[in-house]
């Protein structure tokens, strides 16, 4: 990979610093990964691919068409992981009806225009997009904050499963993906960020955050390489949830 997505945003001095300091060396893959899909829900994707400036009129946090470009990548990674019995873990937001638990999200909301009326179907923006809907043996972690670890049982699930590494995908690259990657790094997990499996509202933020994570905390790799790696792993390494009774429950929701 000579040309990286972030190269065009770097100054000449930045490039010289990276070249001289050796940040961005590749770490070894883990042996027992989980696939993590951060916040790929309707609030961040809309219900269909729409130009972002159009989409954000309905879903203020939508990433527009970039979200849908990542969707086939996510489908591929999810399919391979399920076939291998590798844990597939989703995160999405959670919020009380009265919004009290928005907490710090409100601190910077003062100058913001009022939230638009949501779509006629009154879909919950925190619902995970149907195109990559969780299966009965997958795990969904509800969270209030950017990091999938903050105030959630995620660490305990990874402990129970015996994971040593995470394959991270989803959105936004600069927000919840990065926060989750940092907390996973702090907990000594090995991390791969899937370059074409992540997206953001802001193109420059997407690129530069991938650059930052690749420099210090994670390997940022294309999904083709990640699929090749997943295919090298043994089948059935993990004691996954049985999935019993989940189909009925999913249907009821």
């Amino acid at each position, binding site marked *: 990979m000579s040309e990286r997505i972030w190269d065009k945003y770097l100054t000449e001095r930045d490039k010289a610093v990276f070249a001289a300091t050796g940040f961005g060396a590749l770490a070894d893959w883990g042996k027992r990964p989980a696939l993590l899909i951060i916040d790929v829900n309707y609030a961040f994707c809309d219900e269909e691919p729409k130009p972002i400036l159009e989409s954000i009129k309905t879903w203020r946090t939508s990433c527009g068409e970039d979200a849908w470009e990542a969707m086939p990548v996510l489908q591929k990674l999810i399919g391979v992981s399920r076939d291998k019995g590798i844990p597939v873990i989703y995160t999405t937001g959670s919020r009380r009806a009265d919004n009290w638990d928005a907490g710090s999200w409100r601190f910077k909301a003062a100058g913001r225009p009022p939230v638009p009326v949501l779509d006629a179907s009154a879909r919950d923006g925190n619902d995970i997009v149907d195109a990559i809907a969780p299966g009965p043996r997958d795990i969904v972690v509800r969270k209030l904050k950017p990091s999938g670890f903050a105030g959630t049982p995620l*660490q*305990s*699930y*990874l*402990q129970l499963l*015996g994971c*040593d590494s995470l394959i991270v995908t989803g959105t936004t690259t600069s927000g919840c993906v990065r926060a989750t990657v940092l907390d996973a790094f702090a*907990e*000594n*997990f090995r991390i791969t960020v899937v370059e074409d499996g992540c997206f953001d509202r802001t193109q420059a933020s997407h690129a530069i955050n991938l650059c930052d994570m690749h420099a210090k905390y994670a390997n940022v790799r294309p999904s083709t390489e990640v699929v090749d790696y997943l295919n090298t792993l043994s089948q059935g390494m993990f004691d996954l949830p049985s999935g019993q009774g989940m189909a009925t429950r999913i249907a009821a929701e």
Partner: protein
Amino acid sequence: MNADRFEDHAWADVVPEDLLRIYAPYRRDTFVGPRPALVLIDLYNVAYRGGPVQPETLLGQYPSSCGIYAHNAIEPTKQLIAASRAAGIPIFYCTSDNRPFAAPQGGGATRRKKASTAQRFADDYEIWADFAPQDGDVVIRKQRASIFQGTPLTSHLNLLGVQSLIVCGESTSGCVRASCVDGYSSGLHVSLVEECSFDRHELVHKMNLFDLHHKYADVMHVGEVIAHLDGMIENRVAAE
């Protein structure tokens, strides 16, 4: 599973029959889990001050001592540590983070009144010499009761691939209890070594062991745990 064996522990003489009936749904097999680490909670000098006497007689000079109960645990704990070293499992200690500027007022492990200056010594929170940490061991400095709270312990366990804990130390009702509950809540299998855990009073020790055993941890006798650790060596030798 033999029900009597499950309840054959320190609390047997204080727990009434009706309580055992209420707690019957907790009965299960107890064991040391896979990929264990040894966790030695607060085996620091303060707990042993004044020698092997009843803690009540030490209230004036050494109010934090566990006296006879601490000293009774010394020999079994030495054996447990030796067996853990022989088995090559990771060993974690913890002690109080009493470094200056470390915490605001009210940030202690319990609500207990602070000891007076006359009752405090510079080496209070050094690990008791019989158990001195060795190269390769990890000492966690903590401010609260649990070894997990506000410490990097889970990151160390992840790095080592630890999946289970063997816990002992003091006090059964305080830091041992808090650490066992957090360990269980973190997804780890927890075994608590009865003879190597202690408190300031037998009743408190026994009832906290009882609570932990039924809900969160497998309380095991030191002999059982050492036999398991010895078995790990035999398995390893056999594999080689």
